[in-house]
């Protein structure tokens, strides 16, 4: 153990202070959800005098359970579509030098530049015109589309380094390209799949603007839109809002802490 120099105290102090700034608001959220409305108003900083779970009951009554299920369904469906569809495309693109596949690669990459905020009007009109408002597919399909460019680039790089002997063996055995992809390539792409899935899941789980536009009936809302509804239903019942936020935030934080290595590796990949 090296000596505790003054420089080291400053460095530890700085990261500790920053960590405290991150933790205190989250801690306050949890504490506030156990207080009564009166207590929160009279003494915003203190510990709850009497730990009461009533606010959680009020928040749950608004439909947090349904929001949670909807978020899970939308995220799972979108991520599965993104992985399958991007994987297939990236595999073809990584195994072909033809000019037309290069052009398709560039086209798909170009999709990365289009922010969803810039196409809200046509997207809304297309989806409402198709009668798909308030349908989970109205967000799953656009989420899938907006996840494809980045995931295709990620898989493209992975497949370039993928050993070709296995594919050739499969082809010699008469395997079609499509079959080769699903029974040889995909099962061996675990690391790339995990990385892409975590990255997309974080963004889709938290996506707000499309869900806000497309899902307006309470039974269909995902968590980010649901907690806005929660705030609307409880004017000045901040303990209930904080309880609802705790229900929405703590599970994802727990998953993150348990799997932080994979989250960090996946999201840091954006810098590559």
């Amino acid at each position, binding site marked *: 153990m090296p000596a505790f120099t003054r420089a080291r105290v400053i460095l530890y102090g700085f990261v500790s202070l920053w960590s405290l700034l991150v933790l205190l608001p989250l801690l306050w959220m949890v504490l506030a959800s156990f207080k009564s409305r009166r207590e929160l108003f009279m003494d915003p900083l203190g510990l709850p005098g009497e730990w009461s779970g009533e606010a959680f009951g009020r928040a749950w009554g608004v439909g947090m359970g349904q929001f949670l299920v909807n978020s899970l369904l939308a995220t799972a469906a979108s991520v599965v579509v993104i992985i399958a569809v991007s994987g297939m495309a990236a595999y073809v693109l990584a195994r072909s030098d033809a000019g037309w596949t290069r052009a398709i690669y560039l086209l798909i990459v170009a999709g990365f*530049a289009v922010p969803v*905020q810039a196409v809200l009007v*046509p997207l809304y*009109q297309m989806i409402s015109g198709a009668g798909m408002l308030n349908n989970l597919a109205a967000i799953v399909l656009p989420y899938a589309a907006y996840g*494809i460019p980045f995931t295709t680039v990620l898989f493209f790089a992975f497949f370039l380094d993928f050993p070709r002997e296995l594919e050739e063996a499969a082809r010699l055995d008469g395997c079609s*390209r499509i079959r080769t992809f699903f029974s040889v390539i995909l099962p061996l792409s675990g690391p790339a799949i995990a990385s892409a899935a975590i990255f997309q899941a974080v963004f889709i789980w938290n996506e707000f603007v499309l869900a806000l536009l497309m899902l307006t009936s309470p039974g269909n809302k995902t*968590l980010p839109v649901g907690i806005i509804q929660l705030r609307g239903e409880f004017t000045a019942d901040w303990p209930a809002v904080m309880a609802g*936020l705790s229900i929405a935030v703590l599970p994802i934080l727990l998953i993150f802490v348990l799997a932080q290595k994979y*989250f960090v590796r996946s999201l840091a990949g954006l*810098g590559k």
Partner: protein
Amino acid sequence: MTAAPARLAAVSARPQVGARGSALILLAPALGLCTIFIFIPAVLAIAGSFFTFGITSRVWEPAGLSNYARAFADPVFWIALRNNLIIVLGSIVLQVGFGTILAAILDRGLPRYATVFRTVIFAPMVVSAVAVALIWQVILDPNVGALNAIIKAVGLTPPTLGWLGDPAISIWVILMIACWQYTGFMMVLILAGLQGIPKELYEAASLDGARGLTAFRHITLPSIRNVLIVAVLITTIGGFKVFDLIYATTQGGPANATQVLGTYIYLQAFNLGNMGYANAISVILLGIAVVLGWVQLRVSRRA
């Protein structure tokens, strides 16, 4: 390995699709989804910016360039653009700046607990921006909020209109919330770059007497130049796309003081029904995003 060839041989008995045919089948879903949900809407947004129409109207009235003229004459459009620039520049200075400092400390300054600190500081990144916005909205609330309670406890006076209610400061308060959420992300991004620097470089420099801040300036910063450029680009693009945080805290108010392009597009389109005008602002945002995306592609290819 004996069973597999037999199984595969059975498959090959079926009629085979040609090489180009199978390539098209594998490409079709990705191309189809991107075309329907990205490219066609982008083209429609550009086309729609030259017309006037409402949310439910089937008729598009030709409007020429008037939607763009309206944007350039609209003070709120300029407020929104200025606020986007405040978020972008403020985030570059604060998020990339503190992200670099935190990453450098975690990389070489702490013999223990670096992973614990990394986990804590990165954590807000996985929380939805809406949840972050609501937590802070309550913390900053003039009546029940923790911040004012602390400020009053130490004998200072909080702003009378509230942190998010005072148009003079609200956009800066929102910038602070964004930094609370995303500095850890920048830190992790930059940390990944730092961990690629060979330790021998530092050892050699240390023999030459370069340690601490000198080593940071002459070894660390030049080695992560490309990572820093990517971090700045991601922050810039994110700053132009900001929506959730502002919609959930102020909805662009008070009196449009925190309007950004994203929230203004939403307001014009879905609250005021000016779809053509909203499209014109969208196209301006799209133009900014495409230029930045192109730069990012060029940089990450070089990296």
